[in-house]
């Protein structure tokens, strides 16, 4: 049985904002009955702000909970702010989802995107949709790439948990692996290397360090079952702590300098020094 958080169960048993909006300003629809879940999201806007949201869902407990959470999250937000909501935000709002159910949060994000595109009168161009990789669930390379990046996924299994891609006949597994390799092989694919200005506010520096750790360092360590966490920053000294298999790894000292420090120097500032916390 799934271990759903109290919040997931609450949103499943008492879903908020179920229904339809007559004369909705935006409707976003995603999924279909063959896939096992579907979500129709209705938005009502006033002066560029979402004043009401309603949903209808066919799906399991976490699909209903994710849709309910999404409506609560978007009401009161401007379209701009709403468009920045990620699947991780939805999962966090529900105090987490089991990994195999993360695709429910992705479905929420996609329905929201579809609704916003509908509101803006934009048709998503076929080129932006990409090419279908998983034929069983109709998942494109673009969505797979995006979800890999935004959730730091490193395995096919994770990609399946988050997007459903590869969960049917499995024949697309080699292609998913290729996308994973492409995404993680070259850091430059992740974000164009733009050197930040020398002078940074402290907050900007902390943000950049955290982003670099999340984007450039953790995915690499996770490939070997390890992980690293930012503990503290004092002037130019960054304190990190290793997790997972890194904690027992004799070469973690080398990793500290070769991976963590060099990446931070590269992406944040040449002046940074990395230390292991608590040593």
């Amino acid at each position, binding site marked *: 049985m799934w271990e759903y958080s109290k919040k997931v169960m609450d949103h499943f048993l008492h879903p908020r904002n179920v229904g339809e909006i007559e004369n909705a300003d935006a409707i976003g629809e995603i999924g279909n009955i063959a896939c096992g879940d579907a979500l129709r999201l209705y938005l009502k806007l006033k002066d560029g702000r979402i004043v009401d949201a309603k949903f*209808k869902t066919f799906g399991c407990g976490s699909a209903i909970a994710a849709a309910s959470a999404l409506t609560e999250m978007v009401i009161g937000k401007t379209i701009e702010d709403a468009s920045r909501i990620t699947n991780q935000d939805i999962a966090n709002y529900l105090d987490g989802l089991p990994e195999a159910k993360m695709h429910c949060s992705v479905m929420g994000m996609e329905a929201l995107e579809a609704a916003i595109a509908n509101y803006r009168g934009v048709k998503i161009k076929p080129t932006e949709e990409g090419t279908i990789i998983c034929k069983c669930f109709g998942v494109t390379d673009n969505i797979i790439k995006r979800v890999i990046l935004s959730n730091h996924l490193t395995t096919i299994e994770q990609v399946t948990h988050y997007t459903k891609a590869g969960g049917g006949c499995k024949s697309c597994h080699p292609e998913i692996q290729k996308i994973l390799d492409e995404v993680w092989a070259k850091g430059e694919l992740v974000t164009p290397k733009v050197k930040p200005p020398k002078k940074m506010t402290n907050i900007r520096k902390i943000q950049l360090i955290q982003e670099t750790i999340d984007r450039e360092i953790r995915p690499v360590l996770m490939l070997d079952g390890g992980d690293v966490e930012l503990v503290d920053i004092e002037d130019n000294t960054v304190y990190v702590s290793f997790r997972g298999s890194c904690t027992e790894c004799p070469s973690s000292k080398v990793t500290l300098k070769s991976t963590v420090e060099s990446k931070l120097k590269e992406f944040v500032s040449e002046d940074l020094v990395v230390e292991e916390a608590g040593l």
Partner: protein
Amino acid sequence: MKKLVYVDNNATTRVADEVLEEMLPYFTEHYGNPSSMHTFGGKLYRKIDEARAKVADLLGADHSEIIFTSCGTESDNAAVRGTLEAYPNKRHIITTRVEHPAVLSLCQYLARTGYEVTELHVDNNGLLDLEELRSSIRQDTALVSIMYANNETGVIFPIEEIGEIVKEKGITFHCDAVQAVGKLPLDMSKSTIDMLSLSGHKLHAPKGVGALYIKKGVKFKPFILGGHHENNRRAGTENVPYIVALGKACELAKKYLAEEQTRVRKLRDKLENEILFRVPNARLNGHKTFRLPNTTNISFEYVEGEAILLLLDEVGICASSGSACTSGSLEPSHVLRAMGVPFTAAHGSIRFSMSRYNTEEEMDYIAEHIPPVIRRLKEISPYAAEIEKLELARKG
């Protein structure tokens, strides 16, 4: 205590009080090793043989034809692999698309390691085409492994007819009877079955014990090596308390067999009729007649199974679903898909499986709670319009 209505007996059953009582002394009092050269341990051999005789009695077999295993899955693995090893030159296996994963996943694994596997199709009712079986048999077929009754739908295969076709060609016939033992009368002395798997926890013994029947004279190589136990056919120190428990459970199963066929069947029929009558767009999965007396599998169209189970759980009802979401996989039950059940129905399938511990009052309780649960989920569903159309079409 919160109300509990347990109707998931094809998943597992409660241990019978008589079984628990019988097994307990073998943990702290009679804890010896039956292989030991002292009476304290050695006397337990007799207990194992008594249990063996009881299992054999339920199956209509000779006690020498029974070996104890750790579970149904082990029995299946031992039968399939033990047969293949006995016929190293034969590289073809026949099974069905609706087998339990204990056989199906194993066969699919074997297919990746160089064996050829034929998976027989089923029709919309979940029944086999015996002509397909006949035409699938080859010179190099080592084994035919076909289940007695399906765990998800309860559909029963015509095992003796199948066996006759298989034995005509002199091929070993294995039958996974995990769901049938204790629910249907079996008589191996008159059967075409060469090997039969059973599991303790499906018939009110604890989890962690099973048995494999191997007909005298059938070629078989042991699957687990490492000792002389079970007459050199399954190594490992005998799990005495659980073996004693399985013996007792089989004795009880024989006693209550008639009740399964009458009272339990009545409970099942009552629940099934009530649900199909009360809920629009509910449909039965599997053949109505060729079915285990305790099982019903019903699809609620346009509603998702996990959501149904979670709402039933809130009122203490324990059932199971063939929905994709309950299994952790993304596709609905392989059994329902093999039967051609449409996606609109497969995702919303619920299995209720009863036992002799269920009561009529419990059936009323379930029948009462199902309609509001389905209604509630339909109201959330974006397919409300489709549902209405369907309902109208059926009425019209």
